[in-house]
């Protein structure tokens, strides 16, 4: 089992830094490509959501990310001090409708829920805590 912890400020341009951490861990642990790819998408969506909607101010906030890999799974824990947001409470996007009616809101959350095997949310001490798990065997 191996873990890498990192932290980024709430700026979209910093998200690739987390992606590199995932790639480094994946390479060191020999994780299957599809497991890593799914986690990369899920992490990107979660971090983008936090950065886009999590804060009421324009200030700098720190988002902590801890990535853990073992033979059975790849897990990412994301912690932020933004407003309370439980991804699991977000409604499913309506995927009916043509180009004109289709809403894109909620698509990122749908990706997270579908690509990950387990998503867990908790909130304590004014911090959101999200755990994403993608198993290696399905």
């Amino acid at each position, binding site marked *: 089992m191996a873990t890498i912890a990192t932290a980024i400020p709430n700026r979209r341009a910093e998200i690739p830094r987390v992606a590199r951490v995932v790639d480094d861990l994946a390479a060191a642990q020999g994780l299957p490509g599809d497991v890593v790819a799914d986690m*990369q*998408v899920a992490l990107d969506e979660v971090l*983008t959501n936090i950065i886009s909607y999590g804060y009421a101010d324009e200030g700098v906030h720190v988002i902590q990310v801890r990535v853990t890999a073992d033979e059975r799974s790849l897990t990412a824990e994301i912690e932020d001090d933004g407003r309370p947001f439980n991804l699991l409470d977000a409604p499913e996007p309506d995927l009916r409708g043509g*180009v004109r009616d289709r809403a894109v809101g909620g*698509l990122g959350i*749908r*990706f997270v829920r579908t*690509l990950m095997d387990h998503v867990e949310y908790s909130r304590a001490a004014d911090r959101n805590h999200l755990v994403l798990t993608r198993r290696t065997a399905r």
Partner: protein
Amino acid sequence: MDLPEERIGDAVVLDARGRIDSTTAKEFGDRMIGLIESGCRHLVVDFKNLVYISSAGFRALLLAARKADETESALVLCGITGKIRQLFEIGGFTDLFRIYPSREDGLSALR
């Protein structure tokens, strides 16, 4: 983002190379919309060289599709395989677009 264009007859093939994420989606979207607004009536977006797309990319694609609709232009996609195909399916986008295996197939369909 690397977005080379190729004009073939009255169609444009846009090669979406690399990654479409929250930092590059605007450029991708602006390019497609720019092409349509400047008169391109047949746009083929080729995803065969794309390694990654996030929801921001799908949003850009949807906005471009709306622009195409408004101008009665055709926007078709091709080269969608693997993980990217899976995301199109999860997002319900395979029903929304005309998708072809290759750019040649897309261009033939537009003739």
